[in-house]
């Protein structure tokens, strides 16, 4: 398997080649890579790939890892069913 075929984002099946293409097109932050490739948009919301993407960005843009803008974190921390979130306010909850 060629190195470029490595899967970086497992949820959305984004390869190293696609990440490199996004960087080539001008992406310099984790969110910009995400918006171009969907890396980090999947079920785990980048928990697995965001560190890899940061490293790839550092390697290919020459920025230190610590200076690369991290991805935005948004709730929920992990997937949660709609009916549970719907009743956070104390409304009826039909779930067992």
């Amino acid at each position, binding site marked *: 398997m060629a190195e470029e075929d490595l899967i970086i984002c497992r949820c959305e099946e984004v390869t190293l080649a696609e990440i490199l293409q996004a960087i080539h097109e001008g992406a310099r932050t984790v969110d*910009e890579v995400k918006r171009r490739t969907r890396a980090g948009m999947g079920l785990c919301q980048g928990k697995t790939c965001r560190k890899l993407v940061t490293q790839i960005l550092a390697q290919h843009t020459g920025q230190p890892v610590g200076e690369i803008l991290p991805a935005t974190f*948004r709730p*929920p921390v992990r997937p949660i069913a709609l*009916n549970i*979130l719907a009743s956070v306010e104390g409304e009826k909850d039909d779930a067992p």
Partner: protein
Amino acid sequence: MLPDVVIIGGGIIGCSCAYYLAREGVKVHLVEKGPLGSGASKAGQSHICLWEQPEISLKLEKASKLLYETLSEELPLDIEYERTGSIAIVENPAELSSFEQTVQLLQDEGVSCQLLSPDEIIELEPNLARDIAGGAFFPQDAQVNPLMVTLALAQAAKENGAVIQTFTEATGIELSPGKAVVAVNTTAGRIPTKAVVNAAGAWSGAIGKMVGLDVPVIPRRGHIIVTEPVPSDVINCKILLEAGYMQTLGVENKVAIAANIQQARSGNILLGSSRDFAGFDRSVDPDIISAIIARNLCFMPILSRIHVIRTYAGLRPYTPDLLPIIDEADTVEGFYVASGHEGLGITMGPITGKLISQMITSQQTDLSVEQLSLSRFKGATRLA
């Protein structure tokens, strides 16, 4: 090489202006304070809506949709454009007659739509709740991936010679003694130019102040919920919304909520929607999220065990009369405004860019933009 035009704002509006201007051979320099599409453009759903009134809006929507059909062929990235149609659903029988009047009015305006009985709706969408009163199908409506549209327009503009500079904030605009634009100052230096387009979305008011103009655009917050991907046969028509959605536009003093279910090509469902005024606060309010989900589950109970993977809130550029501003200011030569689209920035993005391009290159505009002038607002004259 000095730019002919500096565009402030790299959302769908600014990128559309950049694209249509660059295509005309105009030298464009776009500055964006964050990454591209990082304001309202990344915070919406997917609907290209062809039935939001009044008449001028309908004209803009229709013209923009025609441009989308071409853009989906000519842009360098896949913008996931698809004519899906949309279904508006009335829940409460008491609201049916006024909805039917609205549909009649839209038909008179030339909007293609047909009223549907509850049985007809259930036939189209077997997973909808049974206790609905009626609705209508809008066959011309379409969907798109707004972020990809923004990125694709920017890339195409670049291919036509535009400079797209992200992480660069406009800090001031220099005027000549005769009140004409001379230069834009940014965090990355001074850019001499004779024309500026204020496409800063919810932040347009601050850009207006730089030239002493009151641009009455304020941020109106909207929340969206993203689910895990769902098989494509759960929802047939990819855009289902509560007919009461139209009424949420005019609600001013509280949080307005209406069900709005849209499935993206990726399979993720985007659930909306809310409208409230919270200043520039983009944090997610958990009570609003709960209320939106509860409202959507009334219509689509089958989704109740589907997982939420993300929630977000964005700031839509609101104007007091709910119409955008697409205009060159009367009192400052070379200062153009393309802002205030509220929830219709995605729908109206292409036509807005084209109109601004036609104004700047002194061509006849595709539509009369008189009603979209900045001077229609009281006090929209130069500040003291």
